């Protein structure tokens, strides 16, 4: 059992973990080992490690998720002009194939790293860790991670981001939060994108989306956005600036331990968490 991190131990299953109950014999005489360990343990530890990297450089990391084509890259392109110019930004792009999205970002003079995930339909923490080797975090204030377009898989993998943003574009229909509760529950901010199309798709009711989000107990703020018309862009810019400011004041109050400050990728990572699978 993972005694150190307590991964995925919820109040609902806490009582399953009884001390001394780890080893038993089954009726057929086999050895039964109680584990209670998150299946994403490896990923989650790498994600925390990534978060320490971001924190040690005062960088805010934002993970953008949506179905394919909901307008993530278009939002980032528009953001480059709209965000507070004092914020230095970089982008990590995840796609199954192609450098297209990274190239769209680079055209605006912003650093972009492309991760080609091949057959994987989501980014994971290890891919982000590799990408961080090619990014000097001391040069940036905000790193945007554009996840693979997919409303299912990315929600399960922590990358080490501080904030999750989910986009729902008007042509997709207003009931996506009811169909993909895992994704929308994970969002710290929901953006209803392509609102310039609302006049053409009059069966999309933003009120309904808000109600479906309440049904999954989401307390995330909602921004109605059009990267085309510019609607909502200033709300988005304000939200990003506020998150960056909150991150900075949090880190001032909770400085990152100095051993992480000097962590570089030249050396092998020394992780001290003990994975005590032993009895």
């Amino acid at each position, binding site marked *: 059992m993972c005694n150190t991190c307590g991964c*995925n131990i*919820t*109040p*609902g*299953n806490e009582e*399953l973990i009884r001390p001394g109950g780890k080893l038993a*014999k*089954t009726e*057929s*005489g*086999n*050895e*039964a*080992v*109680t*584990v*209670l*360990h*998150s*299946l*994403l*343990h*490896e*990923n989650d530890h790498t994600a925390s490690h990534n978060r320490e990297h971001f924190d040690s450089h005062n960088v805010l990391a934002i993970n953008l998720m949506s179905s394919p084509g909901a307008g993530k890259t278009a939002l980032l392109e528009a953001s480059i002009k709209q965000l507070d110019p004092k914020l230095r930004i970089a982008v990590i792009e995840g796609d199954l194939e192609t450098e297209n999205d990274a190239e769209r970002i680079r055209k605006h003079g912003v650093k972009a790293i492309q991760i080609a995930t091949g057959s*994987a*339909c*989501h980014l*994971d923490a290890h891919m982000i860790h590799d990408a961080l080797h090619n990014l000097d975090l001391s040069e940036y204030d905000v790193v945007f991670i554009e996840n693979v377009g997919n409303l*299912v*898989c990315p*929600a*399960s*993998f922590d990358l080490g981001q501080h904030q999750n943003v989910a986009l729902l574009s008007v042509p997709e229909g207003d009931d996506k*939060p*009811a*169909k993909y*509760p*895992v*994704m929308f*529950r994970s969002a710290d901010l929901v953006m209803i994108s392509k609102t310039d199309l609302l006049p053409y798709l009059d069966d999309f009711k933003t009120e309904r989306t808000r109600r*479906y989000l*309440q*049904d*999954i*107990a989401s*307390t995330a703020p909602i921004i109605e956005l059009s990267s085309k018309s510019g609607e909502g862009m200033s709300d988005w810019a304000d939200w990003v600036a506020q998150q960056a400011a909150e991150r900075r004041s949090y880190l001032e109050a909770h400085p990152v331990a100095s051993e992480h400050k000097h962590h570089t990728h030249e050396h092998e990572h020394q992780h001290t968490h003990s*994975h005590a*699978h*032993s009895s």
Partner: protein
Amino acid sequence: MHELAICQSLIDQVEAIAHERQAESVVSITIGLGALSGVEPQLLKHAYPVASAGTVARDAELMIDELPTRIRCNACETESDVPPNKLVCPACGEWRTTLISGDELLLMSVELQTAENRGGDAPPTS
């Protein structure tokens, strides 16, 4: 299909346990899965033979314990089982609720065959 990636990380963990207990084979694996974990039990089952091929867990039975989606109401504190996309308090209608179970993705237990228990020895009394 992130279920394959998750299955591979499951096999890694099971292999480590089997190695540590010096097991000859893995008889069964029990997983606890909530509907809000984002993992489909059926897809996980389909991915299992691919991920376990050639490992000590290849013949293991994968048992999936589907855990209920359970909330506690922030207003009236009632605990209720609810559908995964309707986390609203059935008692008072409040939507501000806290999930207390339903997003688990847990390796719960592993049943191993060791040289010792295969020989039919009496279980040690210690």
